[in-house]
């Protein structure tokens, strides 16, 4: 296995040690595996907390800081955090105004956050949850686990974080997060599988001329496999899937994320962004804001996802609000 690691089972803790060394404005509890804003808890401010399996960096630890998350609780690689850990993070950011949990829709994440919310309630902390399920590669259904949470998580975290920073109440913060989620759709394509440190080998084999369509961010295979095609056609397929699945009305404004899954170089992501922006323009959407880079990753997977969020004036205002985190920074 080709990785810069010492002991596969210590990767998350050792990476957190690096985060602690690198970012003096974060408080990192390596044992509990939580990353907290140095000034948390802020009395009267709603705490915004997110978490999930590791391996998606900079999500979530890289988004802790002014104007975004108050804390992140990274689980083991691709494994949701455990209730105790989430509770500890919840307590660390509780300023008396309640805490909002941002939870990606995976069975494990949902159950562990649910248990943590119950434990927090026992401690007198009010928790609101925002469930993110933006990945339209998966069909929505009450009979299944439903859609996965992927790229839109970043937008939900940015918008809720900005609203909480501005002093909004927990209900309003959670409602804004849910609104962003409802108005967002994502779709991903992979060119290679990723390798978890524990497994030590790629999750699946993909011939040199094939791609996986509709993958998630956990190294799982996608919905189907196809022959590799030019970037332009992949972009078209992606945009079509997104616009086909959610009513992102023509004439509206959008925040667009062209996201690398970890192993795809920026030059390809920009090339894709050019294609995606042109296609969305043709469909009548105005791209008001964009982000191109590796933000919601799947370890070393070569691949990309596109997220489109229909954005009204409030969402754009919150998106533009100052943010100072390791991975996202503007206005301060």
């Amino acid at each position, binding site marked *: 296995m080709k990785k810069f690691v010492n002991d596969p*089972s210590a990767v998350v803790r050792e990476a957190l040690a690096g985060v602690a060394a690198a970012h003096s404005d974060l408080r990192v509890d390596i044992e509990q595996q939580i990353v907290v804003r140095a000034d948390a808890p802020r009395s009267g401010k709603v705490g915004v907390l997110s978490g999930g*399996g590791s391996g998606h960096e900079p999500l979530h630890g890289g988004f802790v800081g002014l104007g975004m998350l108050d804390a992140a609780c990274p*689980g*083991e*690689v*691709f*494994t*949701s*955090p*455990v*209730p*105790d850990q989430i509770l500890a993070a919840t307590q660390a950011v509780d300023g008396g105004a309640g805490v909002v949990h941002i939870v990606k829709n*995976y*069975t*494990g994440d949902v*159950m*562990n956050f649910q*248990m943590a919310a119950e434990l927090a309630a026992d401690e007198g902390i009010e928790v609101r949850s925002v469930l993110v399920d933006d990945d339209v*590669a*998966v*069909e929505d259904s009450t*009979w*299944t*686990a439903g859609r*996965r949470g992927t790229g839109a998580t970043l937008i939900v975290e940015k918008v809720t974080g900005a609203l909480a920073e501005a002093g909004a109440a927990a209900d309003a913060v959670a409602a804004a997060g849910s609104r962003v989620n409802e108005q967002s759709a994502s779709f991903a394509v992979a060119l290679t599988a990723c390798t*978890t440190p*524990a*497994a030590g080998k790629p*999750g*699946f084999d993909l011939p040199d001329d094939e791609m996986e369509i509709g993958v*998630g961010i*956990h*190294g*799982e*295979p*996608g*919905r*189907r496999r196809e022959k590799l095609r030019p970037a332009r056609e992949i972009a078209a397929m992606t945009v079509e899937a997104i616009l086909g699945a959610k009513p992102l009305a023509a004439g509206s404004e959008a925040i667009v994320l062209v996201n690398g899954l970890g192993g795809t170089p920026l030059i390809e992501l920009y090339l894709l962004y050019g294609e995606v922006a042109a296609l969305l323009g043709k469909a009548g959407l105005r791209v008001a804001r964009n982000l191109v880079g590796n933000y919601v990753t799947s370890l070393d997977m070569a691949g990309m996802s596109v997220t489109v969020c229909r954005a009204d004036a409030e969402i754009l205002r919150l998106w533009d609000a100052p943010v100072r985190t390791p991975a996202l920074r503007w206005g301060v």
Partner: protein
Amino acid sequence: MDVALARSWIAAIAAAVAEQADYLTQLDSAIGDADHGVNLNRGFTAVAAALSSAAEPAAVGDVFVKTGTTLVSKVGGAAGPLYGTAFRAIGKALPAGSSTVDAAELGVALRAGLAAVQKLGAAVPGDKTIVDAYGPAVAAFEKAAEEGLAVAARAAAEAAAEGMRATIEMVARKGRASYLGPRSVGHQDPGATSTWLVFQALADVTR
């Protein structure tokens, strides 16, 4: 089953999970995220440590509650809450304070564990999950319970194995494998497989 036997069961599960960790992870790699074996192994290693460091519990139920609580706080993912809640429910369903329980009582408790799993995860039979091994195992255990623990445990293990194998042909509707839709067919469910290990361990220690 007395406290010592309960502990042996848990120890046998821990040993089986450790031995089969790579296999479980490999199954999870095909239709999930390649961590099921790693997760359970981390959890049961912690359980084994917790049980051996703590004073001998007075009641059989306490062994299982402790097991479940440890799993919840160490495993994460889907398996942590599901197995954790199951063992906590099993422990709590046993007669409070009893230092021995009979097969019928254990059958009731196992059924309570299944109910807890289904309440938490909302999976029904045929969804290609833990439930597909756990359900048949409990039914077989209950049916054979009057023939004694050893017989019931062996029946449960066999039924779990059969349920596990039946997941191969299923289209997943819960858990990560559900994202694959029809592509999940042809792969054995990792969680159903670890459930079989749990019941096989019971058969082994009661033989």
